[in-house]
């Protein structure tokens, strides 16, 4: 029997503010444990939280970029539960009247573009961190993260496959990255994702019982966890069993999801309006101003790359995958007008080297201007394509300008016909069999001889000239 898969995602993104959501403690990552805490975020009695205006601004940016309706009146709420990483025993969040609702974003699904609805975006504070490893007789608590501003972006259950879930998550990541509201590091947890997944028969009107999957800290794990869960639920239903509504953890080592027994007890969070924080009613002029300075978003940039640079869809998609990469490409394209060539090098050699070193484009040792200069040297036949690769390696290793490397190493292409002719004569004389083969119509003999000449010239001979001279002399 076949089932339809129904997935909804809840994405948490840490907002890039300097200070916490309700107090002045720093949000910097990697500080000494418990050194960034104060009476407000420690939940001491009698303190008064005050909303960080920047957190609201960043949340509004995301709401606008995802086509949400911004609530004219929104309130904070207390979500009550006990956990050692939550010193107040409640999280300040939003329940009724979230900051924004009813948005959407578009993904490139297998059958074409597909809009995925966004139910709501609300603001809330992060909790602290529990550490278990290497701790005997207890757990350690670090409250530095406590009170860091988050937004939670809840999708409609309109995602129909694990693949689509990954695409949705990537698109959201791209938007958050472009907006510069989140550093989007899934491994470090600044971008987190939980998924609700259920199966139903095509003719069923209502949704099946869902499981909530947590702990998927990469795009790949998100897709794999959902693929596993899809199969698990289908097998359960096929066997006549029932899906239990529960929270399951993705175990990436074993490639399975595991029931989280500790959370089986039904939650009753007893939300109520946070009396210490007053309602948020964003001034329309403020919202308009935020909207007017939104950066170009991934979809728009991709379309512009196709139109402005004449790039294939594939290139435009990859190059606009992050704002930093797109900026790098544009700075290079501003100096070298063979745009496809720029794309080939950025996506090819450059991306390969960065990946090898696990480096981001922002830490690229070659400036886009220097890359453009290298391509220019190649275009003007100062160096051959093969030599360009060597120069590129040098640039990557040492950060020098291409002209300097070419000069220092004497890598200029030899386009002096008499000099090349000399080498060509020598190679033909040394390989009489190749000449006979060529005259017998064996084309590969020409390739062999070109290779020999290039080798003898240490790659510096102009390949077109070598080709031409060889053909002339072999036919003679």
């Amino acid at each position, binding site marked *: 029997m076949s089932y339809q898969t129904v997935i909804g995602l809840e994405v948490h993104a840490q907002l890039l*503010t*300097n*200070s916490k959501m309700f*107090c*002045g*403690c*720093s949000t910097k990552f990697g500080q*000494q*444990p*418990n*050194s*960034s*805490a*104060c*009476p407000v975020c*420690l939940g001491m009695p009698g303190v008064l939280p*005050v*909303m*960080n*205006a*920047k*957190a*609201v601004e960043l949340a509004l940016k995301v709401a606008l970029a995802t086509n949400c309706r911004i609530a004219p009146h929104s*309130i904070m709420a207390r979500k*009550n539960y*006990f*956990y*050692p990483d939550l010193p107040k025993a409640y999280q300040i969040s939003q329940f009724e009247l979230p900051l924004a609702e009813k948005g959407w974003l578009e993904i490139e699904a297998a059958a074409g573009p597909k809009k995925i609805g966004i139910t709501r975006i609300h603001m809330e504070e992060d909790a602290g961190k*529990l*550490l*278990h490893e290497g*701790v005997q*007789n*207890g*757990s*350690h*608590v*670090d*409250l530095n993260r406590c009170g860091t501003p988050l937004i939670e972006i809840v999708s409609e259950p309109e995602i129909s496959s694990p693949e689509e879930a990954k695409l949705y998550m990537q698109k959201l990541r791209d938007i958050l990255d472009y907006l510069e509201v989140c550093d989007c590091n899934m491994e470090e947890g600044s971008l987190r994702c939980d998924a609700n997944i259920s199966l139903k028969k095509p003719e069923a009107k209502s949704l099946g019982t869902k499981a909530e999957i947590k702990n998927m800290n990469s795009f790949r794990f998100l897709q794999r966890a959902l693929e596993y869960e899809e199969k698990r639920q289908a097998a359960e239903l096929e066997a006549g069993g029932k899906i239990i509504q529960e929270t399951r*953890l993705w175990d990436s080592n074993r490639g399975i999801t*595991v029931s*989280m*027994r*500790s*959370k089986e007890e039904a939650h*009753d969070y*007893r939300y109520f*309006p946070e*009396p210490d*924080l*007053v*309602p*948020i*009613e*964003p*001034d329309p002029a403020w919202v308009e101003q935020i909207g007017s300075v939104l950066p170009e978003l991934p979809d728009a940039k991709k379309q512009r790359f196709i139109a402005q640079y004449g790039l294939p869809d594939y290139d435009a998609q990859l190059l606009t995958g992050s704002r930093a990469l797109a900026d790098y490409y544009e700075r290079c394209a501003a100096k070298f007008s063979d745009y496809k060539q720029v794309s080939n090098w950025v996506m090819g050699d450059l991306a390969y080297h960065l990946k090898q070193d696990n480096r981001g484009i922002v830490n690229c040792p070659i400036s886009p201007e220097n890359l453009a200069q290298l391509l220019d040297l190649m275009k003007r036949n100062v160096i051959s394509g093969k030599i360009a690769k060597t120069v590129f390696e040098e640039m990557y290793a040492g950060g020098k300008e291409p002209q300097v490397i070419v000069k220092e190493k004497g890598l200029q292409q030899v386009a002096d016909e008499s000099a090349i002719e000399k080498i060509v004569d020598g190679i033909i004389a040394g390989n009489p069999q190749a000449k006979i083969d060529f005259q017998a119509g064996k084309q590969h003999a020409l390739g062999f001889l070109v290779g020999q000449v290039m080798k003898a010239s240490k790659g510096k001979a102009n390949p077109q000239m070598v080709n031409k001279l060889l053909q002339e002399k072999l036919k003679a």
Partner: protein
Amino acid sequence: MAITTKEVEYVARLARLRLSEDEKERITQQLDQTLDYVQQLNQLDTKDVPPTSHVLELKNVWREDQVQPSLPLTETLANAPQSKDEFFVVPKVIEG
């Protein structure tokens, strides 16, 4: 009766309160009286009154995104029943 002992037990568990049988009975009665009293409000017609979340006529109270000094570690940990080095220590919490 507006409230049952079962509901009192449920709320007590959410609040991590351990109540004796005597306390359960007493609290059930007290809560019942309290709720009864509050029921009087239901006599009012609130059809056209929007829900009140805050009694003050205030909105949009912000602070600028500026880092202020945090507490010294010794003060942060001063009231902890148990601490080690720079951490609070709590009974072992295991997920899964």
